[in-house]
């Protein structure tokens, strides 16, 4: 499937999210076209992760809808999930498995076909060459994050990337690497949604920013 179809877009209409008794945001609208980068900022607890989980379909909004190519993601389900990649705040890596096993298994789990060689290339791309066969629990937090992010290397064909704090715990070298991956993906016509605390500049003319701080009421 070509990822630069004209009408392919992610559209959020009038989203409202309530967690517990707090309304995190309401009346949120945006459209994401091929090549668009959406950056969500906000204080801790302002609803960044909730917004991303709504965009994935893991959480239902109290009001409003998320549409992918014109259809509601709640009705598309597996068809939508095939076309998106979500890397959450938790690493989703298993301490007992090696870096290589983690990458191959987590990719297979979401439906990517990955062989050992591709996985090794992806790991070395994120500076994990030489660590492939070690159990992840003895790696540092930043290295564990790299294992999770190595999936970006294997997900070039996936049109929508949703990344929760991708730069968390990374050193400057790894931040550069991830930034390059995101820039390349946008240049290919992919769409990226990400949350971040750090000031990481990604050169992209089509940057949209949503700040959740001003919306809290």
């Amino acid at each position, binding site marked *: 499937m070509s990822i630069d179809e004209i009408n392919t877009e992610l559209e959020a209409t009038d989203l409202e999210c309530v967690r517990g008794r707090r309304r995190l945001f309401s009346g949120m609208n945006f459209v994401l076209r091929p090549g668009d980068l959406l950056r969500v900022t906000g204080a801790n607890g302002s609803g960044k992760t909730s917004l991303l989980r709504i965009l*994935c379909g*893991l959480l239902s909004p109290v009001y409003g809808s998320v549409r992918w190519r014109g259809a509601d993601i709640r009705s598309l389900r597996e068809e939508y*999930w095939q076309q998106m990649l979500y890397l959450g705040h*938790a690493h*989703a890596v298993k301490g007992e498995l090696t870096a290589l096993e983690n990458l191959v298994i*987590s990719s*297979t*789990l*979401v439906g990517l076909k990955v062989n050992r060689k591709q996985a090794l290339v992806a790991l070395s791309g994120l500076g994990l060459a030489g660590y492939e066969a070690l*159990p992840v629990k003895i790696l540092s937090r930043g290295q564990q994050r790299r294992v999770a992010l190595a999936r970006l290397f294997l997900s070039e064909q996936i049109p929508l990337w949703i990344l929760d704090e991708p730069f968390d715990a990374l050193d400057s070298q790894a931040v550069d690497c991830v930034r390059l991956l995101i820039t390349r993906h946008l240049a290919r016509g992919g769409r990226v949604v990400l949350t971040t605390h750090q000031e990481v500049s990604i050169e992209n003319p089509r940057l949209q920013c949503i700040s959740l701080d001003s919306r809290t009421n």
Partner: protein
Amino acid sequence: MFTVLRCVIYRDLLLAVRRWSDVLTALLFFVIAVSLFPLGIGPEPNLLRTIAPGVIWVAALLASMLSLSRMFAADYADGTLEQMLLSVAPLGTIVAAKIVGHWLVTGLLLVLVAPILALQFDLPQKLLATLTLSLLLGTPVLSMIGAIGAALTLGLRGGGALLSLLVLPLYIPVLIIGAGTVDTAAAGLDTEAHFLLLAALLLVAAALAPWAAAAALRISAE
């Protein structure tokens, strides 16, 4: 779809091998719980022979329940569960794979150890096969019902206690029929009806439990 199914089973077995102490806990619990009865009751062969099926079945039930709370908890904590919810494979398939994984590392081991433990109760040899076969049909049902309970109580405070309250009553039919199979065989009667009932329970559970647990997981993970 089958790639994902295989991948999840392989992963769970690999994790079980690396965390073998978890597997051993359930197995040793079963061995010790069953062994306490002959020690407590004393050498009365007739009494021991009568209570053997019930004791072994109850112990198997509890041992199987012991590891239930871990079925989804680790995946929930480290974010893997979110990835499973977003997989292209239907969630029911992934849950089915997790149930198979759970049974292979608890149920199957219990089935293999049970005949040896039954010797402590002086169970006649011809009944050993009946006991093993009844457990072989019954323990997968325990894993399946347990999966629904584990999914419903995921992420709750004190979920472990709630899980037992939720799951144990549902285990009762399996316990009655399972232990009843051995009793019937001991009385010299035909056990075919009991085995068919156990097999029916297994089929009904296999058809429904993965989807019920999958629906529960989606709610718990919100």
